[in-house]
């Protein structure tokens, strides 16, 4: 197990380097734009010769040097843990990230809770009652959940609440759970349900098919034959093994939640990481984009690593092969 873990971990070092490289070059192909924007703000009338100003701003921001030099410098800074500072606010990009993180973490956790609380039990029930009416209805819901875009479900939920005045949603202050629990729930419950349903649908389908496969195995028949109660057979014998591939799907979902968050943070005006990335991209605030994307991608790499290790731990066949 130790060697397996070490091998899986070491493989990720070049991946993180590649991520940093990709982020750097993708964001530096158009470096002039922020400067142009800045000039336009300082000099709204235009007309003057701005070459000197452009040079000065580029020097201030440290982007007057050749790209190779900036690249090595960037890598060195990343290694030291310095992710640069925002062009706009001149503050460390990392502090910008820290301001957005609580919103995104709260939203992601709530989505994950909704996804798991609905998908896993429903998947199991659907498998146990295969080809019954319940099974058909649940499967139809899951198929629709996979196909329906999450932002559409979110929009429609928002409309429902607004139209029938079910409760008031604070779209301006975006309170966090520990600041104002009730108002926070009133706002976050909508994206949590919409996102949780969309990502849970996939997990549900996988849980169902895995359960069906496991329930057909010999050792399950043995468990029935021994006269064990249904609960014991389902929970202790079947679910345990059926959950192994589902783990991967859950890992993918955790990683994918961030993508969904961008959409929901935009729709519900939540000042989380996703919304800040959108702003930074629009404003071409390169260091902020770089820092955010690097942090997120590294996080995903580690989630995948954790899933792999967990996988190897619960299923010995994998780490031995």
């Amino acid at each position, binding site marked *: 197990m130790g060697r397996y873990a070490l091998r899986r971990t070491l*493989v*990720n070092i*070049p*991946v993180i380097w*590649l*991520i940093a490289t*990709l*982020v750097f070059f*993708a*964001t530096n*192909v*158009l470096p002039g*734009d922020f400067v142009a924007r800045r000039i336009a703000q300082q000099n709204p009338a235009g007309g003057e010769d701005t070459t000197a100003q452009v040079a000065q701003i580029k020097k201030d921001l440290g982007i007057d040097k050749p790209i190779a030099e900036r690249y090595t410098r960037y890598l060195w800074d990343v290694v030291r843990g310095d992710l640069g500072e925002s062009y706009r606010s001149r503050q460390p990009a990392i502090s910008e990230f820290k301001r957005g993180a609580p919103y995104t973490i709260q939203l992601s956790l709530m989505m994950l809770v909704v996804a798991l609380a609905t998908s896993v039990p429903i998947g199991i029930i659907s498998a146990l009652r295969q080809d019954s009416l319940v099974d058909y209805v649940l499967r139809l819901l899951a*198929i*629709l959940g*996979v*196909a*329906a*875009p*999450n*932002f*559409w479900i979110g*929009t*429609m939920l*928002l*409309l429902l609440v*607004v*139209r029938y005045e079910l409760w008031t949603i604070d779209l301006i202050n975006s309170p966090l759970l520990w600041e104002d629990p009730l108002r926070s729930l009133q706002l976050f419950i909508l994206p949590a349900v919409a996102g949780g349903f969309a990502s849970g649908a*996939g997990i549900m389908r*996988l849980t169902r*098919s895995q359960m069906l496969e496991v329930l057909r195995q010999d050792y399950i028949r043995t468990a029935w034959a021994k006269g064990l109660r249904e609960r014991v057979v389902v929970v202790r014998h079947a679910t345990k093994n059926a959950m192994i*591939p589902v783990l991967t799907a859950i890992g*993918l979902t955790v*990683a*994918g939640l*961030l*993508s969904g968050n*961008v*959409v929901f943070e*935009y*729709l519900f005006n939540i000042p989380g990481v996703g919304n800040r*990335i*959108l702003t930074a*991209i629009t404003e*071409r605030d390169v260091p902020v*984009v770089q820092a955010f*994307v690097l942090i*997120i*991608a*590294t996080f*995903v*790499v580690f989630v*995948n690593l954790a899933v792999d290790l967990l996988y190897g731990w619960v299923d010995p066949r994998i780490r031995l092969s």
Partner: protein
Amino acid sequence: MTTQNVARLEEQYFRPPPQPVRPLRAARATRNFMVQKPLGGFGVILIAVVVLVAFLAPFIQRYDPDEVFSRDNPDYDAELAEKSLEDRSIRFLYPPEKFEKTVVASVDGISAGHWLGTDTAGRDVYSRMVWGAQLSLLVGVGAAIIAIGFGLFFGIISAYFGGWVDMLIQRLTDTLQAFPALILLLLFLQVVENANKYHMTIALGIVGIAAVIRVVRSAVLRARSELYVEAAQVIGATDARVMVRHILPNIMAPTIVIFTISIGSYIVAESSLAFIGFGDPAAISWGKMVNEGRKLFPASYTMSLVSGGAITLTVLGFNLAGDALRDVLDPRMRGAGKSGF
């Protein structure tokens, strides 16, 4: 051994006798598919409807999708307007809507004139819906073709050669898959100024390559250990020949399945981008319409409802057809083929 010899030997040992393609057989195969897999058949019908709508858009539209409609202004005061022509200072004494004879027909609900109402800019929603099908199909199918092309190439090479080539391609795939898809797309679209629908198709295709490589690679790994590959190598076929003539035809089943299912993912990704305002500003996109429809709340919700519903049904069609194809063509692949969006 010369190439001609290899070809002759292949002809002798591998080729099944050529079978004439009869249209009747294709029709029967389609009918069998529809009967065996009713859900898959339903998916095929949904796809057919979207394709038809997309191609017939110029004929089934009721108005030009960009035509702005106006209606009589209830606040219009004819007497006042006439006076204002002589004495312009009157205009400052009254609210401006008193002087406009017509207003943009925004927030008009469902009517015989506009089946699905009009949007905020007074354009006919039904006609725009029809044109939205074109963009979804163009982006979805285009991106899938790009992703499959590159994915096949790198996936086959990666699995066939193994070693450091495989290692390199695998790490590149890991890298691409570490980014949340939407963020990687935004990153790529940043590179070009004023990204249009073609840039978007290319960006989506590139983002999708990694998932295709995964599927193709595992299929090739299975095929590579088969006896027919070894036999081809023994009779002296070059690596390129083995890959193209022997491996490629044998991995078509999973390739077709992932092609079909991924189209749905690309359509969702495109509409998500359009929804958050990063789509092609000139194109009519269902995703953008869901967002624009929000501005009509709570007076009318038709636009958001139908445009999102159209995305759902289109994606549903591709998913159902793909699932059924997988069951028919390649039962081993159950559960695989998620493209990560």
